[in-house]
């Protein structure tokens, strides 16, 4: 096994060489942040969740086995952490209608003054946030993080077919939602 592979580094962390976790952090912190950010739209929450992932790795490092890809393992932790966060804060979650997209971090200004392409992106972002958490996670893992359906199935602990169905249905819902949002935007 390559001594600098993710698995090799994690095994060293497991053996007590905690400095190797720094290398893994450098490799994964941006991907994890993007994953959380696309699901929460909150920088502070996303950064806390990234920190939470590495805290869990440290806490449970002795249970790590080199079965499967490290990337799938770390995103499995990230997904579970985001689900916990989602459940804890569900009652405080704003509905899609309540979100002030103009003031959201990363939202490119007010919708009426934006270019059409920018408007579409903002609407797409809004539509994405209206999906249920599982479909949103599936789409983010597939489209943004570049995981194959088989890898997503491992991360989400389900069958590959179930992942494909989720992707398909999420896109169908997105399409419907986008049409609705566009109609409202033109009104």
């Amino acid at each position, binding site marked *: 096994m390559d001594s600098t592979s993710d698995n090799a580094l994690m095994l060293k962390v497991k053996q*007590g060489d905690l*400095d190797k976790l720094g290398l893994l952090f450098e490799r994964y*912190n941006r991907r994890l942040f993007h994953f959380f950010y696309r699901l929460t739209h909150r920088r502070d929450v996303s*950064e806390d969740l990234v920190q939470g992932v590495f805290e869990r790795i440290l806490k449970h490092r002795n249970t790590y086995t080199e079965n499967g890809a490290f990337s799938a393992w770390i995103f499995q932790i990230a997904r579970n952490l985001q689900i916990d966060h989602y459940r804890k804060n569900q009652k405080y979650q704003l509905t899609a209608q309540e979100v002030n997209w103009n003031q959201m971090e990363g939202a490119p200004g007010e919708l009426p003054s934006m270019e059409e392409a920018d408007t579409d992106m903002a609407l797409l972002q809004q539509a994405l946030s209206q999906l249920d958490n599982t479909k949103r996670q599936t789409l983010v893992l*597939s489209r943004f993080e570049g995981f194959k*359906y088989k890898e997503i199935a491992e991360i989400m602990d389900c069958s590959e077919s179930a992942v494909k169905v989720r992707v398909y249905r999420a896109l169908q819902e997105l399409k419907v939602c986008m049409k609705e949002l566009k109609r409202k935007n033109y009104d």
Partner: protein
Amino acid sequence: MIDEQHIELVTAYLDGSIKPDQQAQLNDLIDDGEIDALQLREMQNLYTELGQLPAEEPSAQMRDNFYGMLQEEKAKQPASKASWLTWINQLLTSRRVQQAGIAVGVFLIGLVFGNLFTPLQDYRQQMDQLSTEVSQMREVMMMSLLEARSPSDRLKAVNISSDLSSTDDRVIYALLKTLNNDPNVNVRLASIESLLRHAENPKARQGLVEAISRQQSPQIQVALADAMLALQETKSVDELRRLLQQQELDSTVRDKLQNTIAALNEA
């Protein structure tokens, strides 16, 4: 809406993992109107647009927080085996500790030699010195006792000479003088035994040989003949023959001397 029974083909098409036979099958379905090409294109556009959504970047604070947590976690491991080993390793590789170790080692070696070997050497020196002093005292005592009037004192003096481990020529001369001049037979016999103990000294052997012809006592003559036989001293043959020529020689002594001469000649 595209029928869900075609999900396998559609999702493979969307993420670009569609195989040639699947692509052909998808084309057939589009041609047959089973799948709406427009709807498929809309899904693909949506999927592509998703990948173009802008992404935020994490702040530097996130990195600081992580490394702060990592340092805390490392600090929690002071009692771990690895940390102990590291500490011991650092201790052993420290130049100051190595120098201190060498100094302590030299000190201990000095202590061992100082406490064990030096006293032993002193003790041995003292014993040797004492032994020498005792020998000298015995020599002096022997010399003075040989001059005594009492035969028992002179006998004691000869016995003392037998106990001397190393004798100088003075002792040999004193014993030979006793052998040749002492009036007491027992003292002269004792001096022969004592001289035999110092037979490694050539002067003692030569003195014994020369004493043969000077002796008048049959006991001394027989004892000297036995001594010559024990020493296998062939040089004594002439002296023994000279003794044989004496007319008044005891017949037993004569036989003894003849046998001794014969034995020495065979040697």
